[in-house]
């Protein structure tokens, strides 16, 4: 039984790390720009498509392909921010509708270019690691390790880098930040690019583990949404806590009951949080 519980915990943690990467970008964009990015799942999909082209089709080294995929998605995100979203910063409803339109367009565009079918990518690593009877597929372990490294990097970036500090300042009060010489427009561009890069990175990392199609962004987007509601919209530590919580709860309920109940429980958690702590576990009421 203990072995089963540890296996469930490991399954949940692995999923939780991916949820965190999705949710971090989502909550970063909202925290700084006050835009609920409904196209976040499509940036995940673009990351997967990019790695498929770079690694599977062009034969570029997998790690280089993942990095390039994240950069490509970041650039696409920054172009979209500059051309379509800049004017909606702080206007939550309009921004939300614009991101919905972007999501539909990106999905349709990917369908036209790549076709609607599900595609598979060769896995860069295979095999399973057995630690005292707990089985962890090597590809998932690699994703988990990269996700942890990125989280640590992201933490230090926000805490110590000038750009990271500027992002936090704009998130707290853009007018006060502007008075200190920070140009909020640049920060919007940067944070949207980083948010998209994180989603693209998650997609690029998960592409060889799952299948790739223009529609793969829908579920991760939904999970990101649940995670940020749990953790608190705009709260980065909240995204980490929410991601791990969702991953472990889902894995536990899905294993002991079933996946349908696991989905219900994750939404029930959202309902409870919204009723009793609307700002989320670690968010602050405005």
């Amino acid at each position, binding site marked *: 039984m203990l072995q*089963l519980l540890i*296996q*469930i915990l490991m*399954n949940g943690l*692995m*999923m939780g790390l991916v949820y965190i990467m999705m949710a971090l970008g989502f909550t970063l964009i909202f925290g700084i720009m006050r835009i609920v990015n409904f196209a976040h799942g499509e940036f995940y999909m673009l990351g997967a498509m990019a790695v498929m082209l770079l690694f599977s089709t062009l034969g570029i080294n997998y790690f280089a392909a993942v990095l390039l995929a994240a950069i490509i998605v970041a650039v696409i995100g920054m172009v979209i921010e500059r051309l379509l979203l800049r004017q909606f910063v702080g206007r939550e409803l309009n921004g939300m509708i614009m991101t919905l339109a972007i999501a539909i367009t990106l999905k349709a565009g990917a*369908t036209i270019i790549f*076709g*609607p*079918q*599900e*595609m*598979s990518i060769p*896995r860069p690593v*295979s095999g*399973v690691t057995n630690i005292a009877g707990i*089985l962890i*597929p090597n590809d998932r372990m690699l994703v988990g390790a990269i996700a942890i490294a990125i989280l640590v990097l992201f933490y230090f970036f926000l805490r110590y880098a000038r750009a990271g500090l500027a992002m936090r300042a704009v998130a707290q009060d853009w007018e006060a930040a502007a008075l200190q010489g920070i140009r909020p427009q640049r920060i919007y561009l940067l944070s949207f690019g980083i948010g998209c890069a994180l989603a693209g990175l998650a997609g690029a990392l998960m592409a060889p583990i*799952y*299948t790739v*199609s*223009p*529609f*793969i962004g*829908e*579920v991760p987007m939904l999970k990101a949404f649940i995670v940020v509601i749990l953790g608190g919209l705009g709260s980065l530590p909240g995204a980490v806590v929410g991601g791990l919580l969702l991953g472990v709860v*889902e*894995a536990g309920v*899905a*294993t*002991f009951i*079933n*996946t*349908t109940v*696991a*989905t219900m429980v994750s939404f029930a958690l959202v309902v409870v949080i919204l009723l009793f702590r609307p700002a989320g576990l670690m968010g602050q009421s405005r």
Partner: protein
Amino acid sequence: MKRNKFKRLAATIGGAVVALGTALSPAMAQETLVIGTISALNGPGSEWGRGVDAGTRIAVAEINAKGGLVVGDTTYMIEVKSYDDGYKPAEGVAAATRLIEQDGVKFILGPLGSASALAVKPIFEEEGVLALMNSYSPKTLANNPKYVYRVLPTTTEYVNQIVGWVKENNPDLSNVAVISPNDQTGWDSQKMQVQAYGDAGFEIVGKELFERSSVDFQSIITRLMATSPDIIELDTTPPSTAGLIIRQARELGFEGLFVKIGGPGVPAIVEAAGKEFAEGTIVYAAADTSAEKYQWMEEEYAKIYSPPMNAFNVFFYDAAHLLFASMQKAGTVTDPDAVRDTLVTMTPFEGAQGALVWGGMENYGNNNQLIGPTFIGMISDGEEKIIGRVEAN
């Protein structure tokens, strides 16, 4: 000189009169016949859905290339209107309504998938639109439908024979876990699988349902592994998803046999699972992929959609030909009742894989089920090898 001029004028007028007469003559009239297809063209299950559309289109292209469909005194060039239902009932209803109301279509191939099929069935029955569809739910043929016919053999038709074959060839295996999609298709087909495996002497140790959008099955597999199954039956799980389940189960240490007595799709299974993990999987093959006709169809399919072609393509290719042959014999393309009355008398009909007949009275109380030969395949070195043939019920 004048005489020659007169002759030329007379010849011109004569030619024009003949041409006009030809154009107006009912014996040579040419019109357009529009038929519809409804199926999932996107997302999980679209491997099968594209088979509905492409199978129909290949048959249509064949007929159009020969000059069209001759019905009575009229030659019809056939046009296909295709709608995507995404395997969802609401979109199936929207597609059916658009085909009937906007496009004026009276003959439809599809939908495919129980949820969508059961949602549109009352519409076809009420509107008198003849539909050749597929659905794994027995409810599709319940209450003796007048306009709904099923053109694929379903789990009911072949599950007992294939499970019997599995038992005969693997007498040491006893515990079976069944994984199916969590919708009408999965509920109905899982019920049949459980019954068939039980009847064959297997013990059912797990019954799992998953959402079609799922890509991570670690939790389900972790639970199943605790029940020590010898066989994991993948039932009507879409091929790519089945491949993911196989891969994730093998990674979590499952060493037993995978069987998939549901929709076919070996290329997508192998692509998602990897050759090594997919090796030895027993599959319902639907068609003999080594047959010459099948390979010709694959070439035609590649002109419409990206390969690989799914074996479901064959059934809708045959169904479309059966429908057009019925129209010719009935002498109408506008009267679904007359075409239906002829359709039911058209079998045995020589399909791409062998003779097709109408049947199903024992299971459904009517003969609205098209039945043909069924094949058993095994995945070997990433390819489907046909290892058995059973006659469907």
